[in-house]
């Protein structure tokens, strides 16, 4: 009986662990959008423009630094 309850508890705990910390929130590094810089600009008429600079892993790092623009900028209004 005690044994059975231990097993049950272990099963429940394992389920909780996998639900809360399991591999569903796994992200490979190269799939991340790494924001290197953000700029916010005020536009006329209660509007702001935000510009974010993302790293482009293909171009950053290693020997390629500085050869091309190491990032892409996306802006939205």
């Amino acid at each position, binding site marked *: 009986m005690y044994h059975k309850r231990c097993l049950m508890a272990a099963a429940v705990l394992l389920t909780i662990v996998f639900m809360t*910390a399991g*591999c569903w929130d*796994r992200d490979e*590094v*190269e799939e991340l959008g*790494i924001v*290197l810089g953000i700029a916010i600009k005020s536009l006329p008429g209660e509007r702001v423009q935000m510009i974010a600079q993302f790293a482009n892993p293909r171009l950053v790092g*290693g020997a*390629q630094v500085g050869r091309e623009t190491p990032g892409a900028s996306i802006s939205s209004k």
Partner: protein
Amino acid sequence: MKSRDTDQMDNLLRYIDAYRGDTAVQRSGGSDPLPDIPQVAFSPVLDENVGLIQTLMGDNFDFILRRVRIRAAGGRRAAVFFLEEIVDTVEVSETILEPLAHFASFEPGEPGQDVMGGIVESILEAAAVAEQHDLRGLLEAVSTGQVGLLVDGVDRALSVDVRKYVRRQVDIPQTESSVRGPQDGFTEDEYLNLALIRQRIRSPHLVAESLNLGRVTSTVVGVVYIRGLAAPSLVHEVKSRLRRLDVDAVLESGYIEELTKDDPLSPFPLLLSTERPDRVAAGVLEGRVAIMVSNTPFVLVVPTEFTSMVSSPEDYYVGFPYGTIIRMVRYLALGTSLFLPAVYIAITTFHQEMLPTELILSIASAREGVPFPSIVELLIMEFLFEALREAGIRLPRPFGQAVSIVGALIIGQAAVQASLVSPLLIIVVAVTGIASFISPIFSMGLAMRFLRFPITLLGATLGLFGVAVGVLAILIHLAGLRSFGVPFMSPVVPANLTDWKDTFVRWGMWTMEKRPSQLFKSGRRRMARGLKPEPPQERFRQGGER
């Protein structure tokens, strides 16, 4: 004269039939197909006995039977027989055949003395002679390389121990080499191995008992300890665990290790197996028991602790600061070999915020173009590495170089260029591989190799949380282990702080005054007080003395 009774005779005939394959083997108890050699007394007629021996052993092509006449006994007939290649044939002729043929008389001719007694006392020159009263004992003795001697008119036999087994010279230990320290390693010959211990511990207190294990192989297993230092209960426990082993064969000490482990399912080795005589000597001097198995250079030392698996005899030879540093490096490497791949995967796939931006960018750019998730990548590389390692061991020597070139190319370059794996991961696998070679005890290295995979999987599914769970699980497991009753983690847990001088660190020789507390309750002092060396008060200069 005693004659054989009919019961014995029946048994014998049945056995001979079975031996020749004429009838199905008479199964004595259960389903054991090994026939029992019947305990048959000898006949006083030489030819009868010889005929029997011929029937039972004559088919072996290394069997030699030589009939002689004993000159000292008035030309009485006798027979000498043995298995050629496991006895010293020179010694057979010098200590048995020649004396039998040439000695003119029994020296102090006691009137009523039996011929057998006379032969033993004044003719045979070999050291170890035993009298055999029945057929089984004689056959067993001859199979172990003794020489059998039957004399006409006597219903007993003699077995003379002149065995000479094939032995290898003492060589450098293959798996535990050292720079400073003795360079001799154990061999396959248990007598030679015992000699290596006896030369180190030249004390009458050193006891070497032997048991024969293996129903078929009858392997010699030596139990070596120092009487007075080893706890009698421990010696008793070791011997009773060994006696319990009713198996066909004991071909290596691994058989014994696996069959006497306190926790058979644990990946950790609970018996220290070593090729180094100095290591065994040190263990025996601490009150441990060594188990030597014939035909293997690996000697077991029990009980043992986790900390002694991570230490090497060299730690004690090179001075304590270096010993301490080397030990710390070893523990660090141990941790690396267990946890580095898991931590790498966990951080790069779950906890990227822990990494500096530059590092994460370089990892990302290194992984660019690799189609697999990191864990698959890692498993591919680990598999390649383990396969190469195994191939390196098994391959015939001449191919070794070819494999290492191919391996270096595949692992080093081609895999990266083909975008199968990222260069960073190769560094991780390589560092892990190097770290896993650092274990001074081979079986401990194996445990680490094995445990790395579950930990890596935990890291890949649950992140650092999973790694922490893995660490905890291993610690809990370790804390519960025992080696022949002694806690495996002692003296760390249960803690004995004074013994920590010789665990993660190796403190000065003069501070390690006491024998390990987990093995000694009292009588722990092993050296005099105040051995720390000091410079003398005066200067010694030739010619300056007053």
